[in-house]
């Protein structure tokens, strides 16, 4: 999977492309760990290019959200595609994680 991190003044966009599964979740977690260090702002996970996600990926997201919220920050998701969106919804992640249509709307939501 490919991960790109884009840092803005009040938020960070982490864009994941490909598959977030048992094999790729540890790498994703490592990449994201750097963004989390001392972060009190918002992290936007842009999943527009993510094709597949399993519970291994969901656990990473859950762990990141918990750490960020503990520091007063927040984690939001945007641009979910068909299958990824289905998995996130059936897992109940849409209940406790804000989901936006795109990066712009995620960035401007307080």
């Amino acid at each position, binding site marked *: 999977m490919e991960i790109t991190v884009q840092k803005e003044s009040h938020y960070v966009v982490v864009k994941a492309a490909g598959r977030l*599964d048992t094999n790729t979740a540890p790498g994703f977690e490592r990449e994201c760990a750097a963004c989390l260090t001392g972060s009190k702002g918002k992290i936007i996970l842009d999943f527009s290019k993510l094709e*597949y996600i*399993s519970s291994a990926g969901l656990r990473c997201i859950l762990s990141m959200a918990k750490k960020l919220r503990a520091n007063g920050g927040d984690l939001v998701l945007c641009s979910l595609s*068909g*299958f990824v969106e289905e*998995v996130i919804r*059936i*897992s*109940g992640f849409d209940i406790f994680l804000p989901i936006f249509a795109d990066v712009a709307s995620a960035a401007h939501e307080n």
Partner: protein
Amino acid sequence: MIKVEHLSKQFGELTVLREVNAEIKKGEVISIIGPSGTGKSTFLRCLNLLEMPSGGRIFIDGTDILDKSADVPKLRQKMGMVFQSFNLFAHLTALENLTIGPVKLLGRSKEQAGKKAMELLKMVGLAEKAGSFPDELSGGQKQRVAIARCLAMEPEIILFDEPTSALDPTMVSEVLAVIRRLAKEGMTMAVVTHEMDFARDVSNRVFYMDEGIIYEEGPPQQIFENPQKEKTRVFINRVRSLTYHIRNQNYDLYAINGEIEHFCEKHVLPKTTRNKALLLVEELLAIFSAGQVTRQFEIDLTLSYSEKRDSLELVAESAGDYFNPFEENTLPDQLGTTIIKNLSENMEYQRVSDRNRFSMTVKKQ
């Protein structure tokens, strides 16, 4: 009428029929179905001794035709046979093909045989082709002449060996229509066929042959709607399957995914179904890995696609202690089991022969 006991047939080292036991009663229409190479045609050819059985006994009206004292030519006359490749005499007209047997073997006069032959050609819809040679007939017409020729010998039973396999699809129905008519008139018949609709509609009983035996037999409704045995089910539902054996906790998920993707592509399954299958397998493996309480790590995954039902079934079997992750408090979290429950239906857990067995159907929507 026909009773077969412990029939076997070997060709050199190859055992085609292992232990066939069957009974065909007067007026019955038996369809013989099964995968290629399972001995269906050999069974039929053994019945009229076109192939000499290696063992067993065949009784026709109580007479053992394999007994040395049996009058085989006379017993054979009771059985007509229709072949895949027609086997008409090319140098004789359709009418002559029908009269030669009755004249030479039954002692009929040419006039008697000719009259009967015309009646039979009319019955199969080919009276106007009486003077035509086989070369001048279509495949379907040739096979109808072959059936009429068979009837001209006044058999008590007709054995059909894949009578429509060599025909263009457009000609299959005309031949099946003639066989259907014979069934209606009460002719005893055994038909080796790949025409499943025909077997379902016309037969009184169906023999499913596999492994050199009549693996399952029953009324068409049972065989086609509710087959009792695994191989019959696989054949009837046109099931194709992929099995993957995992013997190490450091399994290669990429390789497993590659095989599943290839399997799904081969059967032209939609991308969403493929993704669901991949996710179900990944979650099951993760759960088994997390719940592994013994040193043994042994999981067999089987993905089966039924073309007839257009459904994809997943079965995961694990060796070792009792382990049902769908019971409460078995796992640290319920993420994996929630995903599995939502992406599948008809999920079942069974403890079979010291193995944990999960089966489920991949949800379509």
